[in-house]
């Protein structure tokens, strides 16, 4: 099986694409599904009484069912389509957080959260007078059991936690954290944006209250996100965005709202991207998570091995391989990540440099930014070799100027 052949961009450009944590490339199966929708089935779902619109509606709702099955949700109406994980998190923060938190309640999140699972909670905490507390990492870049048991208290009402860090690659023990948070009476919002491209997610097994992800990080088009919420929670919540399609009856001064899931889907949705998300799920299921994991395991462990040999590189990752995903953050000592990324770019190697939307984490680590190489199913050992060769070039260019 040659996976790379399925990805037109990777065949059209001679690059080593190592930025899948930012967004993945798209297989032709996804691109073609989106094109087919626009060529054959495009209409505004839930609106028209004509056949084409009914067909668009069916495609849209079938994909909702597909997503529900994919993450093992009990019912399709527990799946809300949004534009990305950030919107999903804002929805939870506004419609659940603002309405349920009181003064002196506590929100607990981890220091490794993406800004999207951090800034909305700052807002909620300021608006409601609740306290925002952080679970910090230890010297192994992990949140210890002691730490989350200390931070999640009887006062905690919401826990926000990423399944897998977009900077460190640390995989958090979310099932255990959720269970503990529930014992303390808190609900848990899990961000699986970085994990669902790589591993099976089962919302019932995890017992997650809310769970969010973006389609574009798992082979789907840009502009489609998912919010899963337990039905009993979603039903009690007020709408987030108001407008068309999320209503039942509208009077001059009053409105009643549509039932789930429409209550949370105001305005015409990105149906083309929803179709693409469905095709991405098909693709992931056809390849299978087992295969994806064995490819990544081989490539990422090879990368770790090769990068460890470069004594001028600092790696920011846990030594416990089973707690680490396919993201590797690193720095060339004395060289700014932006310079490294530019030099790597000139060698056709695409990596991310910067703070990765995680400024509090950077500050906690005492650094401004890192270089980040993130791997996915289409990457190979050759990509790693190119990365290493380009890093050697970058180091050589700077070597004689670096202050020792």
């Amino acid at each position: 099986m040659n996976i790379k052949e399925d990805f037109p961009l990777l065949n059209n450009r001679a690059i080593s694409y190592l930025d899948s944590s930012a967004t993945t490339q798209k297989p032709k199966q996804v691109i073609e599904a989106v094109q087919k929708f626009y060529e054959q089935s495009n209409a505004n779902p839930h609106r028209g009484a004509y056949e084409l619109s009914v067909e668009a509606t069916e495609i849209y709702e079938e994909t909702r069912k597909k997503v529900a099955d994919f993450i093992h949700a009990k019912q399709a109406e527990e799946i809300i389509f949004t534009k990305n994980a950030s919107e999903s998190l804002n929805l939870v923060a506004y419609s659940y957080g603002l309405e349920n938190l009181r003064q002196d309640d506590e929100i607990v999140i981890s220091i490794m959260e993406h800004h999207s699972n951090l800034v909305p909670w700052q807002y909620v905490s300021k608006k409601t007078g609740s306290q925002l507390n952080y679970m910090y990492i230890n010297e192994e870049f992990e949140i210890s059991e002691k730490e989350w048991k200390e931070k999640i208290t009887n006062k905690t009402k919401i826990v926000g936690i990423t399944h897998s860090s977009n900077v460190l690659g640390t995989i958090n023990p979310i099932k255990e954290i959720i269970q503990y948070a529930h014992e303390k009476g808190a609900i848990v919002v899990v961000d699986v944006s970085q994990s669902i491209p790589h591993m099976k997610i089962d919302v019932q097994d995890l017992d997650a209250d809310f769970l969010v992800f973006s389609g574009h990080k798992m082979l789907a088009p840009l502009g489609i996100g998912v919010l899963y919420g337990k039905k009993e929670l979603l039903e009690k919540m007020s709408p987030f965005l108001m407008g068309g399609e999320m209503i039942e009856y509208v009077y001059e001064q009053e409105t009643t709202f549509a039932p789930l899931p429409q209550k949370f889907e105001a305005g015409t949705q990105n149906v083309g991207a929803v179709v693409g998300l469905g095709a991405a799920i098909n693709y992931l299921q056809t390849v299978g998570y087992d295969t994806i994991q064995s490819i990544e395991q081989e490539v990422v462990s090879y990368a770790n091995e090769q990068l460890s040999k470069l004594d001028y590189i600092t790696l920011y990752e846990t030594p416990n391989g089973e707690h680490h995903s396919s993201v590797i953050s690193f720095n060339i000592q004395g060289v700014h990540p932006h310079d490294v990324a530019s030099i790597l770019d000139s060698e056709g190697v695409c990596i991310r440099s910067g703070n990765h939307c995680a400024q509090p984490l950077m500050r906690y680590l005492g650094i401004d930014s890192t270089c980040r190489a993130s791997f996915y199913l289409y990457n190979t050992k050759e990509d790693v070799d190119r990365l290493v060769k380009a890093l050697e070039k970058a180091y050589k260019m700077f070597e004689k100027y670096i202050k020792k």
Partner: protein
Amino acid sequence: MSELDDFYNELIMEHSMNSYHKKQLGSCDFCEKGHNPNCGDEIELQVKLNGNVIEDMAFTGHGCAISQSSTSIMIETLKGKTIQEAKEIIQTFIEMIKREIKDEEKLEKLEDAIAFKNIANMPARVKCALLAWHTMEDLIQQAEKKE
């Protein structure tokens, strides 16, 4: 891509890694902070004026080779100039980066800062090169307000 290799040359590297302008002035009349939150580049410019002449200038901060060397080279270029001359040089630098200058002779007043001409070919790094110059623009504005 040899263009990039050309760019990270001796001049840029020396200014970014071992700049003699990177220090605190004993006393200064104006200082201004600039930052690119995206990359974490942060600089602080310090200026000592003698009348309307920039008598001394220094910077502190941290960031990538392009932001740091651009700051250092800007200081090298602006030191000893009048505020009015400095404004013209800054304007020319910004126009050069935006590729708005056709007349190459105009670029002569930039002295060593002409080294950043090809940064326009690296759009991802334009912000790094401009940081110090925009910060200096703000500083001059502040100085002029005070007059």
